[in-house]
């Protein structure tokens, strides 16, 4: 057995420190936002509308708005994303088509979120005339969620064993029947995990809704898909940059941040946990 070199000891310690830094970052953020935010969260905060020019009351309309926007985005992106993944894995198109589509999906995933906002502003708000609305915001967020849903669905579809496709085809089922009745049901848990993952991503996005959906303050709740809407992430931004009562607003922003963080992180943790369970199941 060779004696461990000093370089190795120092090197491994440095790698450990790098990993430790991640835990430290996460801990620090959770600690500061948790400690200051927790004091301001109560039932009234979750269920009431803001009052007294944003210095009192709750954030209920912003919570509802974020739910609408997220739901809308998923409703738009899910069918498109799953269909795209089905095409890529089941209909196995020619090599160059796969390459073109993969490159465009990867690049779409790398587009800065504010650029999605500008696209939504030009196309949905102005050109299609939806105005600053839930609809415009949902469509914009949906395009942003599309790459996440496609890659998760692809992973789920690829994991379905080839043998059960062949079994179905051998029984005389057509390709579409095989996809609809055999492959998709088997891939469903994995696809759902992708949906949950994209919910976490979409719910926390701010830049794409800045010019397409969000309003700082609205009386009451939205009544149609063409209404402007309050949203939790935008609410935090607005509290910190507008208004005239910085101290009160910061307190509410802490609570809103904790709420958003809790929402997004629990959704992501659920997705991570489900995915780990599924990967184990595939390998078993």
């Amino acid at each position: 057995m060779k004696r461990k070199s000093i370089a190795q000891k120092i090197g491994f310690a440095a790698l450990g420190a790098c990993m430790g830094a991640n835990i430290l970052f996460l801990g620090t953020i959770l600690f500061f936002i948790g400690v200051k935010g927790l004091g301001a969260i109560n039932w009234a905060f979750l269920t009431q509308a803001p009052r007294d020019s944003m210095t009192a009351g709750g954030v209920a309309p912003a919570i509802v708005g974020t739910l609408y926007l997220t739901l809308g985005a998923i409703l738009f992106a899910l069918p498109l994303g799953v269909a795209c993944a089905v095409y890529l894995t089941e209909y196995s198109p020619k090599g160059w088509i796969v390459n073109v589509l993969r490159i465009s999906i990867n690049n779409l995933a790398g587009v800065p979120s504010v650029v999605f906002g500008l696209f939504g502003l030009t196309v949905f708000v102005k050109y299609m005339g939806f105005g600053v609305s839930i609809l415009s915001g949902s469509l914009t967020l949906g395009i942003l969620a599309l790459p996440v849903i496609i890659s998760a669905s692809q992973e789920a579809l690829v994991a379905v064993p080839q043998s059960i496709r062949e079994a179905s085809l051998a029984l005389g089922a057509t390709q579409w029947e095989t996809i609809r009745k055999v492959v998709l049901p088997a891939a469903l848990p994995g696809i759902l995990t992708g949906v949950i993952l994209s919910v976490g991503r979409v719910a926390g996005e701010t830049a794409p809704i800045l010019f397409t959906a969000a309003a700082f303050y609205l009386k009451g709740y939205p009544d149609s898909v063409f209404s402007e809407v309050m949203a939790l992430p935008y609410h935090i931004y607005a509290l910190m940059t507008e208004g005239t009562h910085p101290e009160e607003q910061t307190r509410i922003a802490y609570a809103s941040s904790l709420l958003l963080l809790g929402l997004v992180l629990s959704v992501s943790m659920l997705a991570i946990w489900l995915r780990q369970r599924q990967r184990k199941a595939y390998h078993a």
Partner: protein
Amino acid sequence: MNRRKERFIKYLFTAVAFSSLAFLVGIILVLFKEALPIFKTVSPSAFLLGTSWYPTAEPPEFGILPLIVASLWVTAGALVICVPLGVGSALYLHELAGNKQRAVLKPVIEILASVPSIVYGFFGMVVLAPFLQTALDLPIGLTAFTTSLILGVMATPTVASIAEDALSYVPRSFREASFAVGADRWQTLTKVIIPAAGSGISTAVILGMSRAIGETMTVLMVAGGSAIIPESIFDPVRPMTAAIAAEMGEAPVGSDHYHALFAIALILFLITFAFNVAAELISRRYRLKLGQAR
């Protein structure tokens, strides 16, 4: 009859599958269409190299060099943090962590990656900036330095998870061969594994960079917002994304200012597009080299 239905369904899927390409092309078209009118007012070189950004002054000045410099400046600062930390974490996960540790640490990195950027921005504004201002005795806390710190933390999980992927492609046999000729674990890591995964790791760095330069809410809240070419890392700056997000609400539709903001977005898009294509090309070559082409 049945065959016709099958063919119809296949065409339907083909059409829908091209939606992501359509959106990407749509984004490019929109950016060009809304950006180009500004070059009737300002020449491209005056736009790119002009040092004064006073879009609402009379007469307005549209020189975006301060914004470009600010973006590159904070991104470079972020890289100094996220490259060592991200690659180091990936190496730790790949080399040192046992199964039990990995089961905890990988989710920690994913969770860090899923913290919304607005929360990072808020944290930077109310916790980090005041802290740095007191600790370093600065006139203001919202500076390029503060922004780089936060962006570095944000990009670390991106770099870590992609680099870890790259490491997992390195065949076991490389490691065994290295041990067989008497190298210890550290030598194996630095002389065999890291060089073998080199281009995969550079993909991770490029994508981390792409993430940092395109980040919007954080820089909008933390960078300080002044559109001057920074002289020190403790100057407030206004990166490209922050200018777009802060000013689009006030720019009248169809005005020079409006088109100028789209032109900034176009440049930003082209930068991240180039990064992503580079990452794609490098990672494809990398998998071929290691015999893992898919």
